[in-house]
């Protein structure tokens, strides 16, 4: 497989005809999509138009590279629905900051990828009404993982150099990365601008890269990172990178992540790979995160989602209905008709958690437990540069198994990933092997802004 940087060099030197290559990539995307449902829309005319421009002027760090974009990220003039029916027909009038950045570097945007509606899911099965569920690239009877399922699937199956932009609120970049066997990195909260991202939970959402190699992921991360005045939660751009002393790299294995609920084979694979990597390591404990992380995460995420989704009411964009009745009747009618079941479930729980009488016990209490969780991680980072756990406790489940899960059992599947997401810590999925033909992922977690340590550790693990 040609890496993104070597492909780009060939584009710069004129060895590759970008127009011709893009046509092949689009044909492949259409063919794969018919079988696997990775795209909500393939942006053929935009891609062809961009290819012509790059062919004439082959410049930029992503010159001619096909990039797929999670549907929740706005691309100007390309239907962007966040995997929901209520936004069917919505073509943003502007590009998200990450899109502006990759376009500037010569990327070719080939389409918007399938996802759980507004990011509400761990398996990419909660797609919007009338939309198709993406199928796992290794076994079509299994899930891709969510919510950025389509992004992970196409990154795995495309035979050409490919990058994707996913988004994570509670694990939606690394979970599909693990189930589909691709490298996927969720950056520090605020490192990448959220401007133009259709929000799920503002204090949790991060846009991050997916790629076939760690170097590809690193390249895309560096391009999309940086302060953005359009996003008030954007962090200042770091001018100096932390130097990593590989000899003194110390890794902590989260012991609670290896207990009950984790497939014993996955546990053994993780311990073996860490042993063989020669990275100095020890087992560490995150008791509060492990015990209360899922409850804290879901209360906060649903509370934020229930306010964020209030803007979808059939007035300014997306789905409309004939104006009948007063505003209460009209808004309730549009929302009830076009939101799917999981969106309704999360709006109800989130609204409940914020209501007078319940707010202190649920929403505010969860914001305080979040502080405890952040403190728990920060304490470990005084000794360890990187922490490790399985990305998911199981390999990608079959759809028939997912159908049997209650909502609570579904939410519990995020037990590994909610911690770093609540704490806004950078984390990454690295594939460490296969179990019964399905990929197994290891998740590395680093302190805020310590993506360099995360990437270096990932490169060592990858070589084992």
């Amino acid at each position, binding site marked *: 497989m040609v890496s993104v940087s070597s492909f780009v060099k060939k584009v710069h030197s004129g060895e590759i005809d970008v127009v011709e290559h893009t046509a092949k990539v689009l044909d492949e995307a259409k063919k794969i999509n018919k079988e696997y449902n990775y795209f909500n829309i393939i942006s053929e005319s935009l891609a062809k138009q961009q290819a012509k421009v790059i062919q004439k002027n082959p410049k930029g760090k992503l010159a001619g590279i096909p990039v797929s974009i999670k549907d929740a990220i706005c691309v100007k003039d390309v239907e962007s629905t966040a995997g929901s029916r209520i936004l069917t027909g919505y073509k943003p009038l502007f590009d998200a900051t990450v899109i502006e950045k990759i376009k500037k570097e010569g990327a070719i945007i080939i389409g918007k990828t399938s996802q759980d509606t507004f990011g509400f899911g761990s398996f990419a099965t909660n797609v919007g009404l009338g939309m198709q569920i993406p199928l796992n690239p290794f076994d079509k009877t299994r899930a891709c993982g969510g919510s950025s399922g389509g992004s992970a699937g196409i990154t795995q199956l495309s035979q050409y150099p490919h990058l994707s932009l996913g988004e994570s609120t509670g694990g939606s970049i690394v979970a599909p990365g693990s189930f589909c066997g691709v490298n996927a990195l969720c950056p520090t*909260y605020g490192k990448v601008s959220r401007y133009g991202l259709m929000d799920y939970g503002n204090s*949790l959402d991060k846009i991050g890269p997916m790629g076939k190699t760690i170097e590809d992921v690193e390249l895309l991360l560096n391009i999309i990172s940086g302060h953005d005045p359009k996003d008030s939660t954007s*962090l200042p751009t770091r001018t100096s990178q932390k130097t990593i002393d590989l000899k003194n790299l110390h890794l902590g294995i989260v012991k609670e992540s290896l207990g009950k609920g984790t497939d014993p084979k996955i546990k053994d694979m993780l311990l073996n790979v860490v042993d063989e990597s020669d990275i100095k390591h020890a087992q560490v404990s995150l008791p509060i995160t492990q015990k209360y992380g899922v409850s804290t995460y879901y209360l906060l995420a649903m509370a934020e989602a229930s306010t964020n989704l209030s803007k979808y009411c059939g007035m300014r*964009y997306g789905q409309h209905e004939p104006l009948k009745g007063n505003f209460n009747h009209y808004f309730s009618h549009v*929302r009830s008709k076009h939101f799917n079941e999981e969106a*309704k*479930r999360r709006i109800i*729980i989130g609204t409940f958690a914020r209501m007078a009488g319940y707010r202190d016990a649920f929403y505010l209490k969860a914001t*305080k*437990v979040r502080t405890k969780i952040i403190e728990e991680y920060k304490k470990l980072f005084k000794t360890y540069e990187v922490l490790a756990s399985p990305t998911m406790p199981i390999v990608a489940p079959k759809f028939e198994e997912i159908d049997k899960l209650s909502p609570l059992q579904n939410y519990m599947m995020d037990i590994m990933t909610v911690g770093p997401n609540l704490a806004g810590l950078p984390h990454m999925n690295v594939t460490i092997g296969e179990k019964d033909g399905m990929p197994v992922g290891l998740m590395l977690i680093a302190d805020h802004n310590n993506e360099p340590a995360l990437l270096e550790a990932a490169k060592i693990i990858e070589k084992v």
Partner: protein
Amino acid sequence: MKIDKELIEHVAEVARLKLTKEEIKKFLPELKQVISAFSDISKVDTKSTSSSFQPVELKNALREDKPSKCLTQKQALSLTEHKKDNYFKGPKAV
């Protein structure tokens, strides 16, 4: 805490959702189970802990009070079916 049909209907009304009888029947036991499980956070001692509304420290990010480019009225109205006299047309207020 009593989670019943009336409470779900009230929450749904606040959230501008009209649930069907079938949805309420399905959601009621699920929400009881989820909310009871999430109540476990009450066991964490947070007496001397402050809230984290963000995971990283952020200071007020204010821009200079200067006019800048924004959507034109025509652009802003280009995605709606409901408009009149160059404004959005909404449902009746009462």
